[in-house]
């Protein structure tokens, strides 16, 4: 019944002039359900919003929370991962993702990441791809301005300063562009997935004939490296690879 009302609201909302207003109020209703402890109704509403095309880190995060409270850690992890993908540096998302992961069966020791790489990633994650794009445009403009100053000034120190800062802003612009491109790739490239079946046997080759190598459980994050038909090659955090049927997982 509630679902029906919601779909009517959505239908009505999309056709009305105040299309923006209705989803916001729906979000408020869902938040209130969550606060009152009606997690299943909250999850249903959040899921409706997601299904109708909205995707925000906060929306995924709230949906993940609702699923977690309903005792579905795999669903919660999927949504936290989606939120994390959109906002890589959000502390709450990271905390809840980490906490939800502690409810999964598989304890995989991830391959160590070099600390410089970690730093690089965290600096890159400060802004979204569009943020970096705008920043790159800004630095580009700054570099051009300094170039003009350099070109037309007569005083030697002005020339020297504008040259130094000009080169620096060109570097900034270039790095911003690189960050922006990499962030875009990270967001666009959907090569990670969450296992949804309780127990999945990983095989050495696609097809039923493959030898069974190891077993993973629901909630585990895998990276998809190849796909043949209904089978995908996955890599888990410790670097092990194998093939599983594609219906056992859900793309982040």
């Amino acid at each position, binding site marked *: 019944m509630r679902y029906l009302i919601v779909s009517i609201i959505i239908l009505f909302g999309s056709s009305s002039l105040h299309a*923006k207003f209705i*989803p*916001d109020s729906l*979000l408020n209703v869902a*938040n209130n359900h*969550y606060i009152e402890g009606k997690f299943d109704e909250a999850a249903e509403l959040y899921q409706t*919003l997601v299904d109708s*095309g*909205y*995707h*925000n880190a*906060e*929306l995924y*995060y*709230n949906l993940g*929370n*609702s699923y*977690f*409270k309903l005792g579905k850690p795999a669903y919660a992890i999927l949504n936290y991962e989606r939120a994390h993908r959109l906002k890589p540096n959000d502390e*709450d998302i990271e*905390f*809840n993702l980490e*906490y*939800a992961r502690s409810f999964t069966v598989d304890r995989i020791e991830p391959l160590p990441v070099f600390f410089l790489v970690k730093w690089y990633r965290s600096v890159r994650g400060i802004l979204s*791809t*569009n943020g*970096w*794009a*705008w920043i*790159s*445009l800004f630095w*580009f*403009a700054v570099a*051009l*301005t300094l*170039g*003009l100053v350099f*070109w*037309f000034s007569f005083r030697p120190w002005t020339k020297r300063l504008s040259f130094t800062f000009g080169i620096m802003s060109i570097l900034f612009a270039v790095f911003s*562009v690189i960050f*922006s*491109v990499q962030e*875009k790739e990270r*967001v*666009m490239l959907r090569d990670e997935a969450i296992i949804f079946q309780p127990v999945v046997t990983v095989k050495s080759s696609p097809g039923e004939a493959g030898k069974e190598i190891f077993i993973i459980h629901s909630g585990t994050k895998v990276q998809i490296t190849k796909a043949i038909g209904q089978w995908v090659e996955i890599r888990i955090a410790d670097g092990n690879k194998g093939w599983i049927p594609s219906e056992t997982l859900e793309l982040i």
Partner: protein
Amino acid sequence: MYLKRITFALLLLASCVNIFAQDVEFTVSAPNVVAVGEQFRVVFKLNARPQELNPPAFDNFYILAGPSTSSSSSIQIINGQMTQTYEYTYTYILEATEAGKFRIDPATATVSKRDYKTEPIEIEVVQGSKPSQPSRTQPGTSTQPQAQPDQPADNIFVDIEFDRQTAYRGQPILATLKIYTRSNIAGFEDIKFPSFDGFWSQDVETPNNIRFERVNVEGRIYNMGVLKKYLLFPQRTGDIKIEPFELVVVAQQQGGRPQSIFDEFFGSYQNVRVRLASKEKTLKIRDLPPNAPASFTGAVGSFNLEAAFDKTELKTNEAVNLKVRVAGSGNLRLIETPRFEFPSSFEVFDPKTSDRINTTSQGATGSKNFEYVAIPRGPGSFDLGTLEFSFFDPIKEKYVTLNSKPLTLNVVADGSEQKGPQMVGFGREDIRFIGQDIRFIKTDGIRLSTGYPILIGSAKFYLLLTIILIMFAGAFWYIHQRRKLLNNIMLIKTKRAKKVARKRLHEAQKHLLQSNSELFHDELLKALWGYIADKLSIPVANLSSDSARETLLSNGVDKADAEEFLRIISVCEYARYAPKSEHSQMRELYDNAIALISKLEEIIGK
């Protein structure tokens, strides 16, 4: 002589008074089980001289002899105090004629006009043979040898008896180890008492000498003796097996050929070793009901509680004792210290525990004392509430919670400590995590969007880039054009410098002819400055004599010419405000200026 007799009589009288002051005891003793046809004796004992004694009617028994009376008296003088004891015994020898349970009514004795009665006793008469008397017990009974001796193994057995078969955990069970015999027993060897696994066992004091008494076991009369008694406190629940206990009995068996004339006369006995084991038994131990109060620490039985401070008014840093006494019967030894919380400003030491417990066959009774020692570190009036103690009552089958009287303490400062800072350290502790959960949902500042277009690499991005580039290219072009224009103006000015100078000089010549000194010098100055400024593209405002000289020198003009230029300038400036100068001087200055400009034109005029 006469006097002596009176004194003796008085002494006797006094002693009699003394005796009457004692309690008069009138008792009866008889075996409780006899066989039909067996002779036995009933003995009434009185520790005073009776005026009258009425024996009961022995209705169902046949009186073989009696009453035979015997009396004894003894006089003791200790520290000059004389005590005299009498003992009168009336003995009947009876014979049971038929089986059944018969009651012997009380006998009545009158001592100094007061009546005393014995307890009524019951005697069970069974069909069957009577056992041989154990030699160590009941010396009065006859020791006639049996006609046909039984085998000892049939005649002796051991058993463990329990006062209850089911109990709650912690409820004491009395276990009695008994030996039943129909033979004479010379001694015991190699006794193995059970270990009572699953119980906490305590010995109950029993007399060292085993006293046998007659009991009826399935129609046969046995002499029964108690070997040992234990009080068992169950520690586990469920059906617990009690392992059998074993011992070797040395029994005396009549029989064998007489070996000497004494044997024939006294009868011959033979010592036989018999190994005996009791049957294995099972006790059912129930767990306590689940709804135990918070203050329950395992006490089972029936108790009362007292708790009090040894003083209620005290100074800080002075020790105070809270004495808690739990008295009653039950598993006292297993009671744990009741919990009691002192306020945080008290330094609390571990409670001391002491107990005084008597273990009897009725159970363990006594008291257990707990002593809490606390030292208040801060003054104040403290209401410590009540001390709570709970136990399980196995008879009522419910938990009972006792509360002590309210405990209060009044602590006054002893003046040695400072108020405030000392107390800060108390009560502070690290945050304790009592649970873990995910963080709350995000409710603020969510702007729902159906995803945003990626900027980088899109047409919009390149468009923006191009716009920026075009803007800056435009700016570059504009500035460049401005610069070019400016340069052209300067070029023109340079080219026109000579012409302007000539015009000015011509003007000056006019003033010279009119001998207008002020205007002449003014015009000459303007001509010279204007020429320099235009020719060398220096703004007029920036011109001074120093900068002019520098500029001239840096443009390859001789030092002499530069000095000449400055000289003319200074003369002109001086003359401008001076009184009218001579015509010839003005003429000379004019010629000099023309000569200088011509010269400069040659050097920088390209």
